[in-house]
C-alpha cells in the first residue's frame, strides 16, 4: 500500500494481508499483480469476481492485489473527490455538511448547525482535517 496517512494499525493489517496472501497461495504479490493485469474486466467489483472465479482469491486478498495492480481511483490527497463519491445521497450530504463545520463557526446553543453551514461553504476543498482523528 503506497497510500499515505494510514495508521500504524492499518499498515500492520495490510502487511498481514500480504503475508497471508503469499503464504496461502504460494505466489508473491508481484505474481498476483501480473495475473491481475491480465484481467479483461475494468471495474473493481468485476475484477474481484474475476480473481475469485478464475483464481480463487477472496475479498481481502483480491482487493489488496487490485490496489497494487491498478492503484486507487481516488486518494486521500484529493479529499473533495472522496467526499463527492461518499456523500451522494442529498439527505446524507446535508447531515455531513452540518457536521463538517469549522470549530470557529460551530453553534454554541442547541440550535441546529445546518443553517449556519449550508450557505456559502465549499467544504469539499477541505481535507479530512484534524477532525478525522476524532470522528468518522
Amino acid at each position, binding site marked *: 500500500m503506497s497510500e499515505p496517512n494510514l495508521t500504524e494499525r492499518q499498515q500492520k493489517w495490510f502487511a498481514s494481508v500480504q503475508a497471508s496472501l503469499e503464504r496461502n497461495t504460494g505466489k508473491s504479490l508481484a505474481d498476483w499483480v501480473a495475473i491481475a493485469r491480465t484481467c479483461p474486466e475494468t471495474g473493481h467489483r468485476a475484477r474481484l469476481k474475476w480473481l475469485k472465479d478464475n483464481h480463487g482469491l477472496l475479498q481481502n486478498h483480491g482487493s489488496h492485489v487490485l490496489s497494487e495492480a491498478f492503484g486507487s481511483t481516488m486518494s486521500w490527497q484529493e479529499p473533495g473527490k472522496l467526499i463527492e463519491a461518499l456523500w451522494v445521497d442529498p439527505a446524507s450530504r446535508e447531515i455531513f455538511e452540518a457536521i463538517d*463545520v469549522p470549530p470557529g463557526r460551530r453553534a454554541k446553543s442547541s440550535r441546529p448547525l445546518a443553517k449556519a453551514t449550508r450557505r456559502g461553504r465549499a467544504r469539499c476543498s477541505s481535507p479530512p482535517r484534524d*477532525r478525522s482523528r476524532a470522528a468518522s
Partner: protein
Amino acid sequence: MLGLAVAPDANPRLEAPRNESWSERLKARVLISGVSEVDGEIAALLKAAWERS
C-alpha cells in the same frame, strides 16, 4: 451513523459501537437521521472528541 472518540456515557444519545469498521479509537456512536439532529450537543461531542484525539 457518527463515530466519536468519546466514552459512550458522555451523552445519553451515544451508544457503544458494535462491529463498525472504523478506528478502534472511536468508542461511541450516534445515529443521526436528519440534519435537525445535528445540534449543539453533537457539536459539543465533536469538540470533546477532537480535544482528546
